[in-house]
């Protein structure tokens, strides 16, 4: 594309950004990976231990449990948050008068800090808290649960807080997608007598493909790295049922001063995020082109 002096000028212009990126992103990343091959405990000295940290990780049931919980959490958040966001957007897209107000209300939880949101929900989730009281008042006492104390449902209860916070974001992204669909397509569908479901499957769903890609990618990256919600709501319990990889990194570094193990767990999480989000992005982009 560039030849002669133009090429040198392009390189010259790229250099500052490349230097900043290299210094603050690539170099620390490489050092982080190198740290994972040591037994560093935060002190000035450390020993090279090769792959020992990774071998320990792979044989540690707590880490493997956290990996599994992280994946389950991401899948639940991805499906529920994207689904609810799409549902809300499809309703609001055709109701211009309430769209702005309703979407603002949906976005409100995202303005609260995750820590504060977790505190609020810890009150709602307590055995005699708001949710169980509401269920009791509605005559649904059989659905009352020890939401954060039952290892079988605690992870889903934590995920629900994540979904509550960020479903507004998903909705807004889908609404932007709806705004990009030409009105003529809907008018043509009306003339052809297409019903609501057919309009959705034949026009909206295909045309929302770019919004879906953005939603899925953002949701995956956010939920695979989840940390705040399980930390405040359950601290990884009960019985490790809400432990996630990001929480383990925190525990390794701040509780155990095991920087080497923390770095190894962080590399594992990085690989997970890169593989899953890149894979999902490639598949969804391919789908976009096919449509």
């Amino acid at each position, binding site marked *: 594309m560039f030849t002669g002096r133009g090429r040198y000028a392009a390189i010259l212009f790229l250099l500052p950004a490349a230097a900043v990126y290299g210094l603050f992103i690539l170099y620390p990343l490489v050092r982080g990976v190198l*740290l994972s091959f040591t037994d560093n405990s935060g002190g000035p000295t450390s020993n090279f231990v090769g792959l020992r940290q990774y071998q320990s990780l792979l044989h540690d049931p707590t880490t493997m449990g956290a990996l599994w919980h992280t994946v389950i959490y991401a899948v639940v958040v991805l499906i529920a948050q994207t689904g609810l966001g799409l549902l809300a957007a499809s309703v609001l897209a055709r109701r211009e008068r309430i769209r702005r107000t309703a979407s603002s209300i949906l976005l409100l939880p995202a303005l609260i800090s995750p820590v504060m949101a977790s505190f609020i929900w810890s009150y709602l989730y307590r055995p005699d808290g708001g949710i169980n009281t509401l269920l009791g008042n509605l005559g649904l006492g059989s659905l009352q649960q020890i939401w954060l104390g039952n290892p079988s449902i605690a992870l889903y209860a934590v995920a629900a807080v994540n979904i509550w916070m960020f479903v507004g974001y998903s909705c807004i992204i889908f609404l932007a997608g709806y705004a990009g669909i030409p009105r003529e397509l809907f008018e043509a569908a009306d003339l052809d007598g297409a019903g609501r479901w057919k309009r959705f499957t034949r026009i909206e769903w295909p045309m929302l493909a770019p919004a879906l890609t953005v939603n899925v990618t953002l949701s995956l990256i956010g939920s695979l790295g989840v940390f705040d919600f399980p930390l405040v709501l359950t601290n990884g319990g009960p*019985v490790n049922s809400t432990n996630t990889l990001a929480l383990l990194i925190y525990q390794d570094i701040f509780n155990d001063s095991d920087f080497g193990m923390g770095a190894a767990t962080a590399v594992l999480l990085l690989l997970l995020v890169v593989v899953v989000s890149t894979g999902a992005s490639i598949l969804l982009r391919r789908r976009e082109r096919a449509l």
Partner: protein
Amino acid sequence: MRLIRSLALLSAVAAVTSGVAACGSSSSGNSSGQVTLTVESWKGGGSEPANVAEVDAAFEKAYPNIKLSFSYVPPNDVYQEKLQSQLLAGDAADVIMVDPQHVQSWGKSGYLADLSSQPWAGQISAPLKPFVSYQGKLLASPMELSPVGLYVNMSVLAKAGITTAPTDFPSFLTDLGKLKTAGLPGYSFPDSQGYMAEFVMLMSAATTVYKQTPDWDQQFMQGKVSFTNSFQTPLEQIQQLGGYVNFADAVGTDETTTGEPDFIAGKSAFYAGGSWLAEAIEKANFKLAFIPWPGGGTGTQPSALMFPGTMWAMNAATSHSAAAEDYINFWSQSENLAPFLSSEAAISPFRSSGTAGDPLLSTMVAAYSADRFALFPTNSWDLAQPETTIRSVLQGFLLGKTSVSATLQAIQSAAAPSGS
């Protein structure tokens, strides 16, 4: 991006590890002999003023040639993150606040100066010495012993016709039974974060394990004793509480945000916690007692559990070691330490000193004076990673997923020193 930033943080630490030259601690002196001594602490600001400013003002008055530059750093993760980086960079304060775990980890890294020759060293309560030492070197001056025990709402007990707080386990169960029968609030056992069951196990062990074997921790680290043989009673006591506590609810209830406020609001008669909660709990509108866990048999006196709390240490890289030693020495003297202990509702860690005058602590002080106490094993087997596992294992026990013996076996595996 968050992950990359996390790795960036870790690597920044590693980069410093790999050889950034230490530039000495940040204090300064001048030709007139005036020294500015820097101090970093997680007490003395925020929600924990702890009368640190008062003690420091008295120090500056007593040592006019030393000016203090005090920095409050929020506790826990923030303190750890900031101090860890500063110590690596050789830029930490001359005097820093530490806890027993810091003594071990920062002692291992060589960040803390040896204070073995200081005049107060011989006054430290003997059982506390392992908590302020690393490999035979005395690296910190203790500031307090914080009792961990059972807060009792005596007003609720009175409604059930109970006039004194329980002193042994049978009477404790009897009291719980009377409260239950009378339809009164009973024992609040919130364990969502996992530390309540750990507290109760250790509080019970103070009487049922450590009373007989005061050096149990050392013996355990040497492989001479085990949880499976020694800790049945503490777990059986927790199990017996199941008749009065809904453990499924307990595991779903947060200790700090729910358990403590509920107790203050009079919704429970018993709540376990440390003396650091006393200031908040004493504001409650009922008659209050704070007692050691009544873990012994009928008619016996219980032993108290004490938490070796905050300590002062001297940065090994300080260029003002004499001033730093003066500061730490000043804090070790009973009359100077008293305002801090009073604020903390804690007991002096020095044998020669008086103990706290708070009437709420009288039962704890009596136990301490009679040598009926054990220390929270934060420097041996109950360190960070084992502690996290132990808390999780105990949650499983509360939920009925494991038996006493299986739970003890799991704790044994988590706590045993590597290689044993």
